[in-house]
């Protein structure tokens, strides 16, 4: 598959073949094509097996997007036996079978901290918006109701709230740091307590919810964390409680969440992710005590260009025999300080 931009690899060697399974913008494409011999799956329009059979050389590395488009599972790995490295381009790597990759000696990298600040910023902004009713108040103003109905309803103060963070990885840590400056008390749950932080650790999410006013989902999605926020946890959070989800929709039992919001079991929610995107439960669309967003927590132009640089850095490390910058291992805590592969 010839590319129109001549690839120039370092040291004058012919460019390495790279399997690309991601819809990229022009800048990302160009940056990859300058360095590698890009085999662009989505551009080919062919089914994967046929596409791979036609490749002029077997690719040793692949860039694979998440979001349910492609799964790097046994079938995929069987179809590309030359693969020795998979670079995910999302914060989550739930589309990659880490155990199977480890078994075959296929190194996996994720996007490291590229998205962390934006995700944390969105979580904080959405939390302020739900507590202070900003989105609903905005609609109130734009409908011309302020002159007619007087001041909008009072919200709830953020300062002093106990915030329980599920997952104190890159993103969770940045959320904690930001909310401390607002005077929040930080509680958290993760698989193990973190020695380096002074926040209050809770060994399970139910206890975390009981002692928190706000519950923030900032963990990865895997077997242990599917529906980690369930009916019991919501009841433990209580009628003044707020749920913020910037993880994955499936971290929360969505049907129970909707029920809890309808019945007043909890007070409100800020949701950036849903179990069946882009479908959002209809009952939420008319609620003023929720902030809804279409999976935007990490989508800034800055994180887009950071991701491009980071992906290329991981690929160049792999192809020059150096360790990946942000390797991901199955069921283990990463060696990168502060990061947890939960």
């Amino acid at each position, binding site marked *: 598959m010839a590319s129109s931009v001549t690839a120039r690899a370092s040291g004058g060697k012919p460019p390495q073949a790279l399997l690309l399974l991601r819809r990229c913008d022009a800048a990302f494409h160009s940056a990859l094509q300058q360095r590698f011999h890009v085999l662009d799956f989505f551009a080919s329009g062919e089914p994967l097996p046929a596409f791979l059979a036609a490749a002029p050389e077997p690719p040793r590395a692949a860039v694979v997007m998440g979001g349910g488009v492609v799964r790097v599972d046994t079938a995929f790995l069987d179809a590309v036996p030359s693969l020795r490295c998979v670079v995910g381009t999302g914060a989550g790597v739930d589309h990659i079978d880490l155990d199977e990759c480890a078994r075959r000696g296929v190194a996996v990298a994720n996007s490291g901290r590229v998205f962390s600040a934006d995700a944390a910023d969105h979580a904080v902004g959405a939390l302020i918006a739900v507590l202070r009713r900003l989105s609903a108040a905005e609609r109130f103003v734009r409908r011309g109701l302020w002159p007619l109905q007087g001041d909008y309803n009072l919200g709830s*103060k953020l300062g002093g709230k106990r915030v329980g963070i599920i997952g104190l990885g890159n993103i969770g840590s940045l959320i904690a740091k930001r909310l401390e400056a607002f005077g929040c008390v930080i509680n958290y749950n993760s698989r193990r307590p973190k020695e380096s932080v002074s926040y209050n650790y809770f060994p399970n999410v139910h206890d975390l919810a009981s002692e928190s006013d706000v519950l923030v989902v900032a963990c990865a999605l895997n077997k242990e964390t599917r529906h980690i926020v369930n009916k019991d946890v919501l009841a433990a959070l209580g009628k003044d409680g707020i749920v913020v989800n910037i993880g994955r929709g499936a971290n929360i039992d969505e049907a129970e969440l909707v029920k809890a919001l309808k019945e007043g079991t909890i007070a409100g929610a800020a949701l950036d992710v849903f179990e069946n995107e882009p479908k959002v439960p209809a009952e939420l669309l008319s609620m003023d005590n929720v902030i809804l967003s279409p999976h935007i927590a990490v989508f800034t132009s800055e994180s887009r260009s950071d991701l491009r640089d980071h992906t290329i850095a991981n690929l160049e490390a792999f192809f020059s025999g150096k360790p990946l910058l942000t390797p991901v291992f199955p069921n283990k805590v990463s060696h990168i300080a502060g990061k947890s592969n939960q």
Partner: protein
Amino acid sequence: MESLGVLMLDPMDDYLKQELGRRFQLLRLWDAPPDRHDDFLRANAESIRAVVTGGGSGADAALIDALPGLEIIASYSVGVDRVDLPRCRERGIRVTNTPGVLTDDVADLAVGLAIAALRRIPQADRYLRAGQWKDNGDYPLTTRFSGKRVGIIGLGRIGLAIAKRGEGFDCPVSYYQRRDLAHANYTYYPTVVELARNSDVLVVACSLNEQSRRIVDREVIEALGPRGVLVNIGRGGHVDEPELVSALVDGRLGGAGLDVYADEPDVPEALMALDNVVLAPHMGSGSLETRTAMADLVLGNLEAHVLKKPLLTPVV
């Protein structure tokens, strides 16, 4: 507690209203229709020794002059730009406000407006509720808040609280006010234009007075520029509103997060049509916790006055 005759100018807050009624002789200006207010004042002038007002209502010379027995004006707000302070000084009338208790909420909203404006949180919410995520695909990319240069006009209680929050997002913070505080972490600029030129987000956090009226003018707005965002949690009077609207419409200013306007509760139609602004209905101190604390401060000041003790939070 002796029966202090208190005139409340508008309903403001249920808890405050109830407590004033419980502790004092409360007169409610809104019990009379608007065109009979003067009659109401005349009829009750002798017994009114205190006025409880809000940030928007204030207390002008006409009101003050109509109340010969007035001893104290307690404002349910931190801003007293609509209270005729010189007239109060002339008459020996005390004036109190509600500083401190609302600092956190106002600072929280300032940062909330900045993030909402840059990350388009209310706009994306509208997009989703209108079914656009299913029909049109993903929402467009926005711009990162962390690390943006935050410029604050006025480094008082609220300005400092905003600065502290900004540090949590690794935002370099700079400020303008009349006096350089030589703050270790924040950069001082001697003019608002220079501050705007060196900021990505410009926050108005000073009090409104003769020097700060229209402090955000065309020159400042253009220095902030097509990628800059203005956040106003001060007073509508701080900003040249027609210039602001025109700059937003033209794209000479990138965006805005506004809690206050020149002529509340009227918001310019042209702003309502824009997608690069976040519009809040003057709710900087609008949490149940804070409004209760503000009410307690109003009540505490009135009680101190009656007991001839030092006022809790006097302005005059």
